[in-house]
Structure formats: C-alpha cells, structure tokens
C-alpha cells in the first residue's frame, strides 16, 4: 500500500489511522481511502466480513417458500421463509455438491431449490432432500452435513433482516446501538406494519462507496446540488422559507443520524400543497392519530422531522419526503452498485400512497429531479481525486459547535468507526 507523504502523527501505524486524521478543529480523510485497490481489499475483509449487513425485509418473503435473491457484502445469497419453521433462512447460494447457484431467479415462491447441474435438491429449510442415484455413495456419508449453508449469523430487528459472516459478532440489537431507537420511532409512526413497496431501484455510480455514505447523510449539499429539486417544489406551491434546521447525532458503532425540519411534505403526516387539497384530510387524520397514540412531542418528531440515518457500514434508512431503505456495495474503488427500496405502511390509503410514491421517485429515484445530480457530484469527486496534488478531504464542518444538520459530525461518526475497523489487524477474511 502506498504510504502517505505527511502522516499526521508519525507514531500512528494502523491503516485506518493513516487515512483518518483527527485534530481538535480539523478532521481529514486521505483520498487513498477512496482510490486504493488495496484499501478495498482490506475493507472487504475488515468491514464487510465482520459487521452486520442488511439482507432484506421480512415483508418481501411473507409466505412460506417466498424467496428473494440478494448480493450481500458482494456475495450472492438468498433469503427464504422456511415452509416448516416459518422462519427466515439466509443461505449461501451455492450447491454443496459442486458449487452452482441453486436459486436462479430474483424472487418467487418455491417448495424446493434444485441445482440444475446434477439435480441435487434442497428444501426451503436447506435440507438436502434429493440426490439422483444416492446408492452410488457409501452408507456412512453424512447427508445432513451437505445441507445448504446458512450465513454464520442471521437476525432481524422489526422486520429488517441482517446477516453477518463472522459467527462471533455481537448480537444485532447491541450492534444497532442508538440506531434502534430511531428505527423504532420511524416504524412506530406507521399505523400498521411496514412493507417494502414492489419495484426496486437498482442503479450504479462510478464513485467510491463511502462517498455515498457521506452523501446520504449530508445536509450541507442540499441547497447547492439540488437547486432544480427545490425549484420543482416551489413550482408546486411549497414554501421554502422553513429552510433546513436540525441536529446530528452519533448513534454509536459508526451509525449516525440527522434530524431536521425541511420544507417538503411527509406522507407520514405532514401535508404540503404539492400533495393536493384532496389529500389534506387523510394526512391530517394520520397526524391526529399520531398525537393520540404518542403525545404531541413524539408525534411532532414523527410527523414533521426528517431523519437521514446511516446504519454502519452500508445501510441507509432515510425518513424524509418518503421512506427509503438503501444499501450499496463497492465492486471497485471507483464503482458501486446501489439497491434502493421504498418502505410504506401496509394497507396505506391510496391517495397517501400515491403522494409517497411521487415523493420517492422525484427526489430519491435515479430518474428523479435530485439523485442524478448526487450521482454527478460523487462521480465528480472521484474524478477530482485522480487529479492528485490534493491528498486530503476535509470533514471538519461544525467541529467547534453543537452539531447542526448541515454540519459533518454524522460523517465523522462513520469515519471514526471505519478507522477503528481498518486499524484491526486481528480480523481475518471469513469463508
């Protein structure tokens, strides 16, 4: 790995500490963190093999035998609801015989998963239920050991299914730390259970994955980058004088959140002119019911405040003008693949659902009025890095005050955990 010209402290030797330099009023990240193939290899081993990663949502596999295929931490897996146990299983998508993938469609319902190569067949609990010409094997072969391989750890929190390749990782709830309370707040605001809406945004960016970590929880860029989105809101009657006001919180373990007021409407229960007069009674009804259930103060947070939350390392749950669940993985130092879903209350009133869908695709979607410009910004940063000359990114904003929503405290929370993970030399690659 390339060593840097001016390590902030010559005594520091850890990979993370070489790349993340913190001083009392200055916080810097070395651009090698975004450009080096060696760093990416290190991240795969130290970060993606040892932290909890988002797989999917339980509503996506509601019925026994329902399955979805996912790439998690760069590895093809599939999540299936077991026909017998009704529990969610997350399997490595590979036949225990000679390796071919056994789940070959993105989603569906199946009683069994048959490897087409030699027709070994597994049930939805992973048990090897069929082997052609079983007589050809000795009588002592342990067939049960040839069941589909579950990922080392699988746990879910309120419908969000995570897995970890490290069997010794702390439990999911302990890992989520302060992010748990924010997930509770977001999920409690729904009158029913939440579900993932049908339709996935699967897009890409020619930029390092950590730039999207920063961008997903960045309030500072909104006004400058998203001028055309704000013009769109104004054209539909939104009053921008509210501005963006709020705070940032370090939630522990690298997780962080911004919580703030913003001019746009929220399908949770904040009406705005662009929702249309017709939607006003339903949105106000939702708000009244929140006040009844949770009291004025918590109802205000649920209805009026926006939250951009990072769950370390690569899950974003943004509860803004719509609720998005977004995860992304690097395929190269300068390339990532993003999958984003929209979350909504089950059996939502059709007019509110329509506003939610509109809000999502106009701001969050890769065909909308904002996300393409984020992509342009992050790709532009990545291109700028290759110009050289400038070695460090500056992430110091707001270090000397109570963090505000357009400061960078939430990014520093991510980078500190990243530094800690990258400093660890005891973490091996998981099989």
């Amino acid at each position: 790995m390339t060593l840097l010209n001016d390590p902030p402290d010559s005594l520091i030797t850890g990979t993370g500490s070489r790349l993340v330099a913190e001083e009392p009023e200055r916080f810097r990240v070395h651009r090698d963190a975004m450009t080096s193939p060696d760093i990416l290899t290190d991240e795969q081993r130290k970060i993606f093999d040892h932290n909890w990663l988002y797989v999917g949502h339980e509503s996506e596999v509601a019925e026994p035998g329902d399955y979805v295929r996912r790439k998690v931490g760069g590895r093809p897996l599939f999540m299936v609801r077991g026909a017998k146990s009704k529990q969610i299983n997350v399997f490595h998508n590979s036949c225990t015989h000679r390796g071919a993938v056994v789940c070959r469609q993105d989603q569906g319902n199946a009683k069994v998963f048959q490897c087409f190569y030699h027709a070994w067949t597994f049930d939805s609990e992973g048990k090897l239920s069929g082997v052609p010409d079983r007589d050809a094997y000795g009588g002592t072969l342990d067939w049960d050991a040839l069941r589909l391989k579950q990922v080392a750890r699988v746990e879910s929190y309120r419908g969000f299914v995570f897995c970890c390749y490290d069997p010794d990782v702390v439990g999911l709830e302990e890992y989520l730390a302060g992010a748990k309370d924010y997930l509770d707040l977001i999920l409690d605001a729904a009158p029913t259970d939440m579900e993932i809406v049908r339709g996935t945004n699967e897009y890409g960016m020619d930029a390092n994955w950590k730039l999207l970590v920063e961008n997903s929880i960045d309030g500072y860029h909104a006004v400058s980058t998203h001028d055309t989105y704000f013009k769109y809101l104004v054209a539909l009657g939104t009053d921008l004088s509210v501005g963006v006001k709020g705070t940032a919180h370090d939630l522990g373990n690298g997780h962080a959140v911004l919580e703030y007021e913003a001019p746009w409407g929220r399908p949770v229960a904040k009406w705005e002119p662009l929702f249309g007069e017709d939607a006003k009674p339903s949105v106000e009804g939702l708000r009244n019911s929140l006040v009844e259930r949770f009291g004025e103060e918590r109802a205000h947070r649920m209805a009026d405040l926006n939250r951009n939350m990072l769950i370390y390392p690569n899950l974003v749950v943004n509860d803004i003008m719509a609720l998005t669940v977004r995860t992304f993985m690097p395929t190269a130092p300068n390339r990532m693949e993003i999958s984003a879903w929209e979350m909504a209350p089950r059996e939502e009133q059709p007019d509110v659902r329509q506003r939610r869908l509109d809000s999502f695709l106009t701001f969050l979607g890769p065909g909308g009025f904002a996300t393409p410009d984020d992509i342009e910004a992050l790709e532009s940063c990545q291109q700028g890095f290759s110009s050289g000359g400038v070695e460090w990114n500056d992430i110091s904003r707001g270090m000397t005050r109570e963090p505000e929503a357009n400061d960078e405290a939430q990014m520093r929370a991510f980078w500190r955990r990243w530094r800690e993970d990258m400093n660890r030399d005891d973490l091996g690659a998981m099989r």
Partner: protein
Amino acid sequence: MTAPPRTVTRAEVEDLLFHEAELLDEWDLDTWLTLYTEDSHYVVPATDTPDGNPATDLVLIDDDRLRMRLRVERLNSRKAHREYPHSRLRHLVSNVRVREPEGDEIPVRANFVVWRARNGKDVTFVGSYEYRLVHRDGELRIRGKRVMLDMTSLRPANDVAIIL
C-alpha cells in the same frame, strides 16, 4: 370533444415517433412537449417490474403533463448537474406496430435503442415503447408513453436523467 378514432398508417405514426426522437436528440425539449396532449403521461417502470403500476408500485419515472413540463425546465437549466453539459443522445426507433384503435386511442408498440455519451462514458438503453396516440385538432399527438427497459438493472447506465 373526443374525435372518433381515425385509422392511421404506419408511416404517419413513424413520422411522429421519428420526429420525437430527433427533438430529444437535439435537446429541443420545449418543442418535444408540444407533441404531447394536456392529459399525457410518461412512465418508466423499474427494471425488475416491467409491469409496474405507478399507482401502487415504485417506478423510475411517473410524469403527468405538469411534471413533464417541470422535467423539461429542469433539463433546460444549468443546474441539472447530471445533464449540464448535456449528453449526446441518439434515439433509434424501430419495429413499429400500429394496433387496432381502442376508443379514441391508437395503441402503438415500438422498439428502441438510446445511446448516451457524456464525459468519456457511453451507455446504452434498450427496450420497448408502448404509445397511446390520439388525434388533436387534426394532428396526431401522444397521450401516453411507457418505456420498458430490457436491462435487468439500471446499473450499466447508472441513472436515467435523460428522456428515453
């Protein structure tokens, strides 16, 4: 007000679709809008749900006429960073099939390839169009355009900031 359906030839339909392609390639979006009726819709479903219904499912683009106009205003602005400067575009439209009229609408299917070249990167969008055409004041106009992408994800193209 609704004119009775009139039969059209494939050549008339192709003239309209090729004209649209030319306007998009030339970034003459204000004129492009005039090809659409006041009650028009432009929809691009997500790549994993080509049958996606914008009323219930997450799609990539779901524009009514107002949002089409605002999209054009955005793309005409220097603040649409993803498209400033504009991509070079080339819309190729082929395999045009004119269906039997349904009410006052003429359903049309066509295939397309759109090349987008910008900043050293060339990407390709491939798929099919479903148009619903109507006659307005003696002219053939577009009331609906639905764009079904064949790519299994948007990843090879990164985003869809352009009009397909």
